[in-house]
């Protein structure tokens, strides 16, 4: 057992960028300052990890300490994992006083009543975020510390962020445990996924700057401030300003939440210019569209100014933060209101919890 734990700690250390290993170990607090001083941080990461492992072995690190190190690592580098968002519901308005000890006890008991072979650790952070680490075993094998799920729960909210990793079959058990431990009635997966945990929080907690109505008169507004070279005459300046203003209205002023992708399952009708004399089908034209970017919303925001899209951009794209989702199913609206763009498409509120199927090989 010891060797497994020590090796696990060593591998966790290996994941940390070399310059930050010291800081992380200090945060961990298991090794004393004196011990940390003995490590030569100018070695290769491989060697550093062995030095740390050695010290941990000498100090008899146990599973709880190893788990804690892993929690700290994931708390500092949450974007290495993919996160899904869930929302819990309860009837009634009572806001119960949150008892952390009670929560932990109920959570643990709920999971272990179904599966005894698990390692469960909790850590509470200053922003009321509770981090839960679960390492999964099976009915016949001990927990595998490398097969972990993470849950991040802000106790004052109904939102739960889950990074299930490889063992999705344990997801229902995990969700059940959350509901029971937090005194809610049920839990539902939202159509919102990303690697950027903080951005997911920004979106559901509405912490990004939202659309604002422009009530300010033209002169006061912060129009594009460039170094004006009087010799250059921008013929399109009014068009540029129009695009800029519309973009502001759609996306707001501040930084956008960071999402990796948005996916749209289209089940709308194909409509074409009659001069082409093509497809006139009664059934929907089925498509799957996926937008990917290191920073999707910023990327979409830059399309109109770059001349690649019309301004204002489609509400299907600009509604992402407000609707707190990046998976969509779009159907044609039954009654047509020509000229009213937003009414042309109907966002289907999907009650399904599985991912949209990808059509290509």
């Amino acid at each position, binding site marked *: 057992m010891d060797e497994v734990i020590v090796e696990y700690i060593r591998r966790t250390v290996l994941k940390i960028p070399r310059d930050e290993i010291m800081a992380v170990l200090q945060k961990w607090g298991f090794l004393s300052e004196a011990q940390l001083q003995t490590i030569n941080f100018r070695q290769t990461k491989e060697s550093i990890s062995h030095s740390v492992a050695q010290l941990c072995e000498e100090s008899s690190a146990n599973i709880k300490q190893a788990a804690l190190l892993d929690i700290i690592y994931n708390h500092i580098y949450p974007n290495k994992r993919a996160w899904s968002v869930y929302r819990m519901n309860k009837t009634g308005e009572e806001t119960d006083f949150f008892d952390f000890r009670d929560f932990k006890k109920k959570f643990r008991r709920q999971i272990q009543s179904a599966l005894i072979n698990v390692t469960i650790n909790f850590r509470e952070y200053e922003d009321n975020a509770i981090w839960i680490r679960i390492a999964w075993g099976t009915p016949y094998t001990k927990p595998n510390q490398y097969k972990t799920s993470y849950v991040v729960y802000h106790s004052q909210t109904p939102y739960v962020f889950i990074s299930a990793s490889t063992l999705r079959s344990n997801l229902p058990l995990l969700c059940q445990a959350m509901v029971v431990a937090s005194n809610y009635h049920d839990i539902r997966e939202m159509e919102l996924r990303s690697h950027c945990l903080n951005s997911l929080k920004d979106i559901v907690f509405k912490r990004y700057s939202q659309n604002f109505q422009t009530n300010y008169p033209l002169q006061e507004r912060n129009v594009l401030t460039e170094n004006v070279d009087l010799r250059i005459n921008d013929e399109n300046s009014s068009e540029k300003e129009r695009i800029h203003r519309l973009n502001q209205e759609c996306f707001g002023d501040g930084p956008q939440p960071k999402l990796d992708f948005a996916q749209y399952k289209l089940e709308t009708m194909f*409509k074409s210019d009659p001069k082409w004399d093509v*497809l*006139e089908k009664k059934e929907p034209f089925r498509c799957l*569209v996926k937008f*990917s*970017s290191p920073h999707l919303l910023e990327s979409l925001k830059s*399309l109109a100014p770059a001349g690649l899209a019309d301004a204002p951009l489609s509400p299907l794209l600009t509604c992402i933060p407000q609707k707190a989702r990046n998976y969509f199913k779009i159907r044609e609206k039954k009654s047509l209101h020509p000229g009213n763009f937003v009414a042309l498409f109907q966002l289907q509120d999907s009650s399904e919890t599985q991912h949209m199927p990808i*059509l290509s090989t």
Partner: protein
Amino acid sequence: PAGGQPFAGALIERRGGARLAARSPRSVHPGSRLLPPRFQENADPQKTAFLLRKQWTLYSVSPLYKFSSADLKDYARMLGVFIATEKQKGLAVDVDGELGVRVAMSGLPELRGSEQDPAAVLVQLSLRSSLSPKNSEEKLIWSGWFCCVAGDDLLEDLPENFTCLPLFLVNGAESYTAIVGSWFQKTFDCCFRRLAISPLNLTWMAAMWTGCKVDKSTAATELLFSVPHLPQPLDISYAIHPEDAKALWDTVQKTPGEITQEEVDVFMECLYSHFHRHFKIHLSATKLVKVSTGIASAHCDGIIKFLQSQYLIGVLMLLTELAISQIQ
């Protein structure tokens, strides 16, 4: 004729500088192309199964001087010696326990358009391991094959002693590609060039392959667009259900037996306008980098994947045409 050798450090000795007579360049984007033929019934799909579902990097190859398909065994031996020599110089990859690379060259007569085309030639490199020296337990590490499907244009005026195999497909390490390529360039006075696929040709592939009839349910028609020059780059994947894509194409494609540029344009415009209706984005202003269908997938860097043996010849015909365009 090409300038610029793709294999760095390779010695290129041109013998006699024999070149093809200048000819009027074949139109790179012809007004129309024939519909891709389906595979001949009596051909054995087993023989070509190994080509499927692998990623092949494309090159164009200028005609080979004094190449004979009867001498493949000799060529294989000579290439083997060359590889060993290159490794001595430290130019090749060396793996523990490796006794050397074995070269096999064979003909693939089924991979051609007609009797006029030369048979395809397959080159395979396998690793002999010290673990099983006598066994045929050799690990295939690199494959490359030359082929010519319906190369009529180039075959017509071909001077004597030249063999036309303009398309070269590679799967394996770049280092071996460079060595094999250098040997062929030296030995047969030919020239290899990476074959990129233009967005225009990708749209042809999207249209043609979408229209191919397949027996069982197949993958979606997927177009991948890239917008790299934004502050934050954007990739857009646009996949259409194969039945719906084919239904659209079938109403667009009206000329019997062939496909015209105009039909391809209308097909793409339909897809672009459907997209624009939803997202207000002009896909036509972005860069089409990859096309995938149930028949095959193609990437603009000149990478292809064959997914169905039925249409293998049809796809090779199109690729041969692109290779020939690049050579001229």
